[in-house]
């Protein structure tokens, strides 16, 4: 346990120390309260400072409340500010006394000086007292209409503060809609930003209970709002830009033209010196291009340089945050970074949390062409004085060996590690050699020769010892001394603390016995006796099991304990691809730093809008914008594109503009158009002059995802879209979905087949989700492992009576079969919807084979 840290208990000489001081302050404040003598303000300042200082270091000075309020009658703005700070801090504990401040705060809210008005309003809203909300409504209302932008800025956030004190008061006073008007009209960008922040928070919190609020929340993501904000993006401060960019990342454009317009508009944000702006832009770009593989890849190429520049220009802390994001991208698409490996070399003065990230990146980007250099570099770190990093480096070498075809050179390096005679190096290496042998048994000869020379006395770490023992058992026929080394280890049985090592020893001796019975017989007896007497349950049980097995039949025992082994082809990943995808969805958040999705580290009430639902069990929520193209697939599928995109880039690049062009591949999801018609007037960008970024309808780019119309099978005439309009942005939460699913009885089941191209595209289910979204059919949850996938969709009819459609869709990609169950709240349109659903799915080559209505 850590010893207590000295904080307020050992104040430095300049700091007041406690009770006596507080009553002293009280007296002095009283003396000054009524004084009109010249210089009073100066003495008050000194006194107030002392009070604030005490407050800062944790001394409770709340007992001075009434004296502070009495002293606050002043025109001195510095004094006022200190007083506001004090009042804000202690009002909560003194609701009665806080009432005293209302008067002068309200008066200040009407001051001539906008600064005073703003400050007073901010303080008034910060009191956090439910009994005072009635006094807030008036000043807030006039604050929102104030002709000074500073006051409006304060008022916008003030509304949010009021909402947190009393949501009902805030909503009843109609503040949210006032904020909305202000957001869309105010000439001051910071006022707009504050309105947006406040509305996002209010509507997200209200959405749980009010349909209207969730519609309003969705409306923030609508085209008019997004375009309005984007058109003003340069007016916003860098921080407000982050806010807007975050919103843009959630926006779903209707077509690729829109995507390119947005990206061209935001292109120069990538050159911003503020890393937060750049990351927010990158998130937008990545999410906007999810459905366009090759543009998505261009984005990776484009963001590389700015990210690397930011990593090396900021403070170490900033670098770490940026590097974590780079790490995520490298892990998703290592191929795209394989030429940049030197950027991931460690510098000797970097903190270990940075080095660890870099080592993982080096491991990931290693391929045939750079492995030699990377491993050479890693070997340098293995000799490093920084022991944890040296260990990590050795592990990295091992991992590279396990993922490469040509391990020849690496095995040699690993064996050289064993010659370094450093305990921790030997320990790490032994573990690796063991794993290597499990994957590449053909190397046993070389490895065994070296491993045989290691004195087991120099190996102390349990994992390493277990590895050594495993090898002794497994290869006892090739190692002359094996039985004797094992035997000597039994002598120290009682001193061996690790149960893992004892278990391995048991098994190894048994294996050795099968191969070299005469030499091992004695050891076998000893180890079984020791094992049976062992106090550890597992060790005891295993010894007993072996003993009985041997008694029963030795050859059966051999088949159980030492069967011929298959080489391990792939060691399982530590992190599931689903988790990785969720982290990617949460790009530019703490999830990336912690390498965990947010539901693992945030409380429920602090999560964002679209979140994980525990009710739906193991299924993941179909997040609005998700990418599931696993890096390997992406790279495999687009080797040609790598060449293609660079050449394209060169053509369209201006003489010095680092920008790259985002060109359009064909993404023709709209061949069957059922999308609810856009009724809003189409807003457009004011500045469309981006000559370099022409939309290229390049039909030559192969349609990797199989989304193009050519995938749709010709024979089955795609059912023509019936006159059913769906709401483009329905709102339904997972628990309501479940409830409705149980309640609604009208259902339609059908079975169908999917073409092979369709199933190939479904290997990345997110493609389907996005595609369906284009048809106003939304996924609420999806899950499964290949070949079985399960999706839950929902949609909502646009016209009255509004009704939901719920769909369960089971797809088996190996048998190419699909089972669909549709439930409709409005039974009369169930067929119409089913046709819409089928036609949407027909892009994946879906063909209906028969259906039944229940």
């Amino acid at each position: 346990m850590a010893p207590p840290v000295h904080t307020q208990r050992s104040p430095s000489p300049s700091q007041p120390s406690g009770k006596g001081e507080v009553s002293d302050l009280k007296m002095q404040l009283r003396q000054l309260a009524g004084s009109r003598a010249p210089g009073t303000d100066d003495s008050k300042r000194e006194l107030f400072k002392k009070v604030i200082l005490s407050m800062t270091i944790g001394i409770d000075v709340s007992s001075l409340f009434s004296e502070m309020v009495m002293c606050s009658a002043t025109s001195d703005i510095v004094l006022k500010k200190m007083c506001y700070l004090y009042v804000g801090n202690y009002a909560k504990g003194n609701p009665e006394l806080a009432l005293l401040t209302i008067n002068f705060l309200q008066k200040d809210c009407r001051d001539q000086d906008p600064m005073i008005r703003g400050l007073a309003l901010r303080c008034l809203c910060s009191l956090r007292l439910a009994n005072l909300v009635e006094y807030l409504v008036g000043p807030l209302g006039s604050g929102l209409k104030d002709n000074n932008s500073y006051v409006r800025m304060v008022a916008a956030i003030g509304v949010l503060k009021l909402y947190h004190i009393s949501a009902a008061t805030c909503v009843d006073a109609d503040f949210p809609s006032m904020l909305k008007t202000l957001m869309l009209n105010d000439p001051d960008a910071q006022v707009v930003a504050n309105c947006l922040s406040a509305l996002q928070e209010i509507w997200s919190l209200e959405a749980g209970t009010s349909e209207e609020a969730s519609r309003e929340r969705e409306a923030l993501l609508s085209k008019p709002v997004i375009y309005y904000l984007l058109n003003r993006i340069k007016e916003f401060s860098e921080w407000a830009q982050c806010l807007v960019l975050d919103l843009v990342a959630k926006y779903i454009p209707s077509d690729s033209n829109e995507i390119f317009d947005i990206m061209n508009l935001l292109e120069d944000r990538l050159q911003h010196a503020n890393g937060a702006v750049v990351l927010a832009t990158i998130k937008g770009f990545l999410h906007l291009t999810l459905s366009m593989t090759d543009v998505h890849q261009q984005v990776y190429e484009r963001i590389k340089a700015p990210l690397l520049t930011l990593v090396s220009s900021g403070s170490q802390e900033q670098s770490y945050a940026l590097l974590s994001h780079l790490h995520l991208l490298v892990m998703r698409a290592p191929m795209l970074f394989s030429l940049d490996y030197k950027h991931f070399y460690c510098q000797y003065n970097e903190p270990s949390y940075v080095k660890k990230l870099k080592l993982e990146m080096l491991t990931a980007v290693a391929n045939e062409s750079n492995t030699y250099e990377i491993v050479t570099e890693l070997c340098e770190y293995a000799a490093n004085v920084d022991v944890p990093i040296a260990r990590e480096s050795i592990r990295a070498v091992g991992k590279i060996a396990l993922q490469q075809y040509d391990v020849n050179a690496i095995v040699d390096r690993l064996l050289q590690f064993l010659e370094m005679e450093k305990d921790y190096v030997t320990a790490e290496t032994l573990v690796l050699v063991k794993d290597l042998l499990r994957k590449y048994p053909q190397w046993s000869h070389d490895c065994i020769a070296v491993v045989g020379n290691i004195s087991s006395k120099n190996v102390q770490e349990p994992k390493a010892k277990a590895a050594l023992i495993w090898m002794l058992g497994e290869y006892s026929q090739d190692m002359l001394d094996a039985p004797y080394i094992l035997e000597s280890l039994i002598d120290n049985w009682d001193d061996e603390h690790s149960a893992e090592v004892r278990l391995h020893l048991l098994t190894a001796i048994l294996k050795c016995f099968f191969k070299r019975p005469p030499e091992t017989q004695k050891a076998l007896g000893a180890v079984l006796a020791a094992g049976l007497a062992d106090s550890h349950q597992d060790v005891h049980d295993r010894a007993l099991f072996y003993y009985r097995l041997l008694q029963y039949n030795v050859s059966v025992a051999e088949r159980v304990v030492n069967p011929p082994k298959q080489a391990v082809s792939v060691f399982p990943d530590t992190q599931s691809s689903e988790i990785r995808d969720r982290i990617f969805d949460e790009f530019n958040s703490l999830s990336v730093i912690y390498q965990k999705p947010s539901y693992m580290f945030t409380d429920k009430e602090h999560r964002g809008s679209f979140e994980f639902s525990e009710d739906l069990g193991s299924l993941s929520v179909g997040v609005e914008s998700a990418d599931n193209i696993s890096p390997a697939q992406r790279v495999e599928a687009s080797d040609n594109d790598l060449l293609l995109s660079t050449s394209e880039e060169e053509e369209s690049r201006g003489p010095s503009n680092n920008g790259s062009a985002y060109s359009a591949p064909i993404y023709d999801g709209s061949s069957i158009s059922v999308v609810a018609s856009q009724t809003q007037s189409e807003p457009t960008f004011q500045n469309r002059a981006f000559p370099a970024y022409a939309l290229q309808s390049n039909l030559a780019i192969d349609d990797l995802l199989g989304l193009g119309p050519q995938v749709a099978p010709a024979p089955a005439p795609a059912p023509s879209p019936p006159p059913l309009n769906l709401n483009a942005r329905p709102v339904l939460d997972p628990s309501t979905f479940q409830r409705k699913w149980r309640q609604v009885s009208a259902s339609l089941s059908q079975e169908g087949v999917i073409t092979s191209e369709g199933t190939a595209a479904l290997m990345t289910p997110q493609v389907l989700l996005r595609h369906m979204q284009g048809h106003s059919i939304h996924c609420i949850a999806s899950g499964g492992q290949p070949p079985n996938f399960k999706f839950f969709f929902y949609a909502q009819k646009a016209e009255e009576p509004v009704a939901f459609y719920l769909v369960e869709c089971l797809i088996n990609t190996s048998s190419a079969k699909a089972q669909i169950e549709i439930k409709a709240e409005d039974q009369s349109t169930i067929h119409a919807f089913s046709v819409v659903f089928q036609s949407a799915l027909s892009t994946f080559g879906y063909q209906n084979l028969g259906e039944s209505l229940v």
Partner: protein
Amino acid sequence: MISQIFVLSLRGDNIVFRDYRGDVPKGSAEIFFRKVKFWKEDEEEAPPVFNLDGVNYFHVKVAGLLFVSTTRVNVSPSLVLELLQRIVRVTKDYLGVLNEDSLRKNFVLVYELLDEVIDFGYVQTTSTELLKSYVFNEPIVVDAARLPSLGPAAMFMQGTKKMPGTAVTKSVVANEPGGRKREEIFVDIIEKISVTFSSSGYILTSEIDGTIQMKSYLTGNPEIRLALNEDLSIGRDGRSIYDYSSSAGGGAVILDDCNFHESVHLDSFDIDRTLNLVPPDGEFPVMNYRMTQEFKPPFRINALIEEAGSFRAEVTLKIRADFSSNITANTILVQMPVPSYTNRVSFELEPGAVGNTTDFREANKRIEWGLKKIVGGSEHTLRAKLTFSQEPHANLMKEAGPVSMTFTIPMYNASRLQVKYLQIAKKSKTYNPYRWVRYVTQANSYVARI
């Protein structure tokens, strides 16, 4: 959404503590400090971001102070860390010198700043310029000369006497003792270089991370024009970024990439490499750049370790300054880890060496060689005799090194990027503010393997 911002001294005292949302317990500063101080054993340092019981803690360390922020929400870590750095910068703009003493003296001012920078967890502004109209406390200036110098400003104070060393440590709001403000502007080209030499002395990797930093004390915010090398080019057009052969031997300066401050207009940058800007008050980076083009490293390092009888070895370190003799590097420190079983070291300097210090750090088995200055073109050698407590392993080379080096070279920049001129839009004929353009190169990671 940020819940709290606080500043702690390295002993853990709260100097400033501001709570914005009241959703994180008040004891967070103590919890944080304890966690950072007693971080897991196998990691030397707490990472700048961590989560403890649902609260996320962010911190940056500057000038012996910890600037900390907490939140419960899954925010953008870059945003919060960038914000903390910006709060540091604004505070420094106001106080002139940032350290524990100046912060303690001005904590009320810092509260005032924090009140305007963040409202209910949302960032309002971090511009020193804008904040000026909201902040009323006068900074209490601490005497910079008395204090150990910190930050990039510090490197200008040593060596070059032409520089008004204290100028960069004056507050943007405080007036000079004379009452009038001195009209001046500083443009600093600061480059951090990283080089790794292989054991045979050839360059494995090299990179320059540069910043053009500006600090303006001009009244009325006149427009400024900054011209860089005309042949400057950006981006390495598809070629491998480590393709040295193509760019060796003089010629154009090729940056891999760069980014710019918001205030910079790039309209004429593509044509004649000039940057137009209206500098806001305070210190800010005009441009950050990164370069992997080959450059001549300022120092060559030669290190050798040889056995010299049983239980003994000798280390020879040779440093050669590969730059012009009118330039002087300062505060040079050369370090080299030696075999872990070394228990005694005796040093032998060249005859007539001045300003050299040598040390054997027993705890981490490292020898250190400090030199006050190195004049361009000179060469310096250190011999160290090591005594071992056991028979050394066969491969002594693998037990020692690599050699690392830190230094500062004023009036030198490795990239050859230059500010050709600095034009200030004239208000009148007599208006002629002081303009300082300064260069400095520092080692970031300068390593030679043996």
